């Protein structure tokens, strides 16, 4: 007897929901990400790969829209030749939440390269790591983890508000409450 295959996508909508969280709330994502094989869209903010940004920058800039870069944690960005200042957004992927390279990449962008645009985390972004990302300079988050979405919707976060490290403190555009020693804050 032929076996009936189990239905796919038992909870299609609930499981696949992905939302952008920034400035303390959920927001619409105005950017469209395109891979290198896809033609550039017209009149919409676009996220391109590093390859395209390096090889077809003039074409991308000619769109005259805000441009985002899909960064790769293994690729070395050069602030000058990569013209990071012309980017509105840099997207850093967390393939696994235990892969911490994205934190250092964000610190580099903020503290060493002086990048002032939006830094966005994608991939496995969970409620317990989100405050750490904020403190390293991320300011927007693409979230698909159900419990994280529910917690954020309920206004719950998971952070230790007291922080000993001043470097990233205060730079994050966040509504989360963080505090440091007065003396450390004064030194900033």
């Amino acid at each position: 007897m032929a076996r009936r295959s189990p239905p796919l996508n038992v909870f299609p909508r609930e499981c696949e929901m992905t939302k952008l969280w920034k400035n303390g709330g959920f927001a619409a994502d105005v950017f469209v990400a395109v891979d290198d094989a896809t033609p550039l869209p017209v009149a919409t903010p676009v996220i391109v790969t590093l390859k395209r940004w390096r090889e077809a920058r003039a074409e991308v800039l000619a769109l005259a829209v805000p441009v985002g870069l899909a960064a790769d944690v293994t690729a070395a960005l050069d602030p000058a030749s990569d013209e990071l200042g012309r980017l509105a957004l840099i997207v850093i992927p967390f393939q696994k939440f235990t892969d911490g390279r994205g934190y250092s990449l964000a610190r580099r962008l903020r503290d060493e390269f002086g990048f002032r645009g939006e830094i966005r985390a994608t991939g496995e972004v969970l409620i317990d790591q989100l405050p750490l990302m904020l403190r390293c300079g991320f300011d927007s988050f693409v979230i698909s983890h159900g419990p994280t979405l529910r917690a954020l919707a309920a206004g719950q976060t998971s952070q230790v508000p007291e922080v000993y490290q001043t470097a990233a403190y205060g730079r994050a555009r966040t509504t989360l409450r963080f505090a440091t020693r007065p003396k450390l804050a004064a030194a900033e």
Partner: protein
Amino acid sequence: MYRYDEFDHAFVTSRVAQFRDQVARRLAGDLTEDQFKPLRLQNGLYLQLHAYMLRIAIPYGVLSSRQLRQLAMIARTWDRGFGHFTTRQNIQLNWTKLEDAPAMLAALAEVEMHCIQTSGNCIRNTTADPYAGVAPDEIEDPRVWAEVIRQWSSIHPEFLFLPRKFKIALTGAAEDRAAIAFHDIGLRMVKGRGDNAGQIGFQVFVGGGQGRTPYVALLLNDFLPREHLLSFLEAAMRVYNLHGRRDNIYKARIKILVNALGADEFRRQVMAEWAKIEKPSIDLPAEEYQRIAKYFAPLQLATLPNDDAAVAKRRASDAGFARWLRNNVMAHKVAGYRIVNISFKEPGKVPGDASSAQMEAVAALAEQYGHDEIRVTYQQNLVLPTVALKDVVAVYDALVENGLATGNTELITDIIACPGLDYCSLANARAIPVAQAIALRFANPAVVDDIGPLRLNISGCINACGHHHSGNIGILGVDKKGTEHYQITLGGSPKDDAEIGGILGPSFPAEEVPDAIETIVGVYKAGRTSASETFLAAYRRMGAKPFKEALYGAPKPAAQRIPEGV
């Protein structure tokens, strides 16, 4: 010692609340075990063979009496009435229930303690010279900077998901008592020379470690002005975090990266990173340094005579006391005072295990005679760093009552041992019974004294928590076709002459290990030039050959080649 201010208290209290919430979310199913594991590890909670193990941070090994009493209470209330001091100057409780953990953390927070980052792929508890602040050979007290590192590394947002764990050790003395050469980063406080004359700074070593690929650390920076410590550490950590291997857990430590790139290329990358880092936003402001340093101001001690009639009399009449005085009581930087080592290595006992009653006894001694201070050593013993010479007899008598007066500091029975297969889920073999059997074989203290300084370290698996690579004699438990066997290495050293021991030959079953150690010691005693030539010095002079021959017999002569034409 350092005391928490309101900010530190708030930090630890928030952390306990955060973990309580994380445990609740785990139990509610909002966190999978994979998602929860790094969170519980970063709060010191391991899942072991039989139960959860809670590893409590003892920052740079410094405890007050009140803290040690609280540890005793916690062990009695929520565990089995004892704890295990570790080679990271921490203490572990081996029979913890997950649901009790938040209450235990809250009890620790009451006495300014926590378990933050005692596990996980993050910056672990920073260790330091157990004689810090009292050693006669000290250039500067490293506890100040150890506390600075403790604060800086606590929930450092960038470095909680490193490729692998990260251990930092500091010394401020001429003699390295912190094994800095076997740490991811080792820091030695030094006086500047030449252009840096008049300054105090750090010699920075990187990439040391034991485990399955042991390395002695390499020099990264010969002189780092101390005020730039944090920005420099941040630069080194960033290079490691971005470039350390993440594809293979066994190749993920910084030592692998450093040795793959070479010290020069690693240094070049760190210096390039450091040059770009915004130092003022990371380095500690001078004012904050002063605030922390004040807590470590030297005790105001009245100078006392450097000899004491009662001590001399007891030494002449009591061989046990004389031995303990000679082996466990060290010079203090202030005349008339001594550093007292308390051995948790009575032959037959579990190395590093302390009952709640013993902890309370030591706490009481520290209160009465020791200015309320206790240190933990990486050799799993305790220290009373400041005892007046005239009180040494009273301290000894109290230690005798509590089974803590063994006079064997840095002798063959002062064995470092990991928990091994009795507790640990990583182990291949037991470490504790082997340590006990060896110590009992050398139970005669006169024999131990005659052997002289000898570090014997035992690990129950290749992860080397028992520091076997750096033992003058190292013993490694291996699984040989389902039975516990032990491989012996000779010639390791954790000190300034740091070296990794060499494997002697095939492994032995557990019951043959004490005989093998006795044979090795016999070769040393027969071969030493005088009683003052240490085991390590003699081994380095004699080489492995006589030891191999004594253990395995003379090598068979190579098969003789029959000349052609015969």
